[in-house]
């Protein structure tokens, strides 16, 4: 425990050593151009009624993980999420597919 206390003390000292200077120490003189690869995330929604509709309409904008990480939510919430994607973000989803997607989400992520 004594060592822990010593360590906490050291941590505070380190913080003190990096306190802001009155004037900005401009450490940057040049910038390196950036060229990177961003992962795409090619996971698909689990098979089942409506999986074609959700795979075909939703994955253009976002990976499936966003949806699969959601908690169970009521059907009305899923309905308003799908409506928001169409009305606000202008996802070109047909009425028929939108209904299938709401059914799919309610089936795999539904709550009362």
């Amino acid at each position, binding site marked *: 425990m004594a060592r822990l206390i010593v360590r906490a003390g050291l941590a505070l000292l380190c913080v003190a050593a990096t306190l*802001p200077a009155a004037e900005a120490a401009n450490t940057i003189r040049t910038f390196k151009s950036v060229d990177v690869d961003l992962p795409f995330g090619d996971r698909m929604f689990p098979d089942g009624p409506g999986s074609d509709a959700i795979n075909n309409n939703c994955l253009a904008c976002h990976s499936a993980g966003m949806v699969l990480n959601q908690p169970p939510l009521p059907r009305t919430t899923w309905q308003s999420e799908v409506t928001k994607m169409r009305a606000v973000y202008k996802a070109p989803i047909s009425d028929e597919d939108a209904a299938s997607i709401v059914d799919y989400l309610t089936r795999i992520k539904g709550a009362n």
Partner: protein
Amino acid sequence: MRMFNEALCRRTLLKRAGIAGLSLLSSSALADDAIDLWLPGGVGTRAMTTAFPDKGRMILQRTRPPLLETPFETFDNDIFTPNQLFYVRWHWSNIPSNIDADAFRLTVHGHVNTNVVLSLRDLLAMPAVDLVAVNQCSGNSRGFFQPRVPGGQWSNGSMGNARWTGVRLKDVLDRAGVKSGAVAVRFNGLDEQVLPDGPDFMKSLAIDHARDGEVMIAYAMNGQQLPLLNGFPLRLVVPGWYATYWVKMLNDIEVLDGPDESFWTKSAYLIPDTPGATMTPGETGVKMVPINRMVPRSFVTNLAAGARVTAGAPLELRGIAFGGDTGVKNVDVSLDRGATWLAASLGADAGKYSFRRWQLSVTPSRGDQAIMIRCTNSEGKTQPAEANWNPSGFMRNVIEITNFVAA
């Protein structure tokens, strides 16, 4: 990489010190490649990822567009969050992955005397300022809302603290010369909407706020150029305000002579216009306003939920606090469910918008225990005992409770 070594050292130190094992610091890791965030009602397991450029091992909330959460143990190491572990959040997936530093230009236009086009070299030639400030997602901790709400299901790690270096926004606006009658300033970055008719991500600040001399355009974060995923090469820094305003890859500044009627400022990121931004689930007719200033928060960083410690022995607790839109006045700790509070000692003050360390030695008695941490900011605003609720999961700042066992 420095972080990982430090964590290793700390664990070794703890083992040698022979205290209640590793449970004090044990993260909720299920395995090397997954973590359980213990969100109420479940669906809290997330993959860990090292697949993103210039990022270390992050909690994967979403691959595209990226939502990457900072592992919470990071906050135990330092009040500064390392760039490679700083959380990431994007709205649209059209993010340039290739930016030429020499060709990049920032444009200032709109209700100004002269349009101005600045290179990164031009910005380096201007007076530099720096500031330590917390950047926190509006929806940080959304995963703890009950009832649960849709959105990025963050634990407490969509926040970070960094030293930002750059130029004053005011100085840049002055170069263009803001015309009288200007009302707002709108900020746009290089990222674009995927769907042609979808709303490009832009945010605005009121003209007086934009010219307050504190809002800045940062080209460095913790002394280094920004990682692409944190907004290389330029990011707006709006101290004390939620991160939605901190526009990344900033390349366009437009001075407006009327209010910004575009989607992301007017219709998104809205909170109930009530104290604490709270309302009742299902309540209708609540006036909504754009989210704005942050509120105080505090966390213990060296005691995991469910940890086992030695009863009757001193327990050195430590953590971080921030005041929101102003500094930390005090941090108090309760071991009796809020009946009495003990004042923690505060670490060095890196500025009023920064994280601040707190620490306190307590001696827990045998049995099930709970620690509560409460930050009061220098304007006297303190954390509430009851969690707020709103349909977007914004502005959580309830007093945190960590259960543990003293045996």
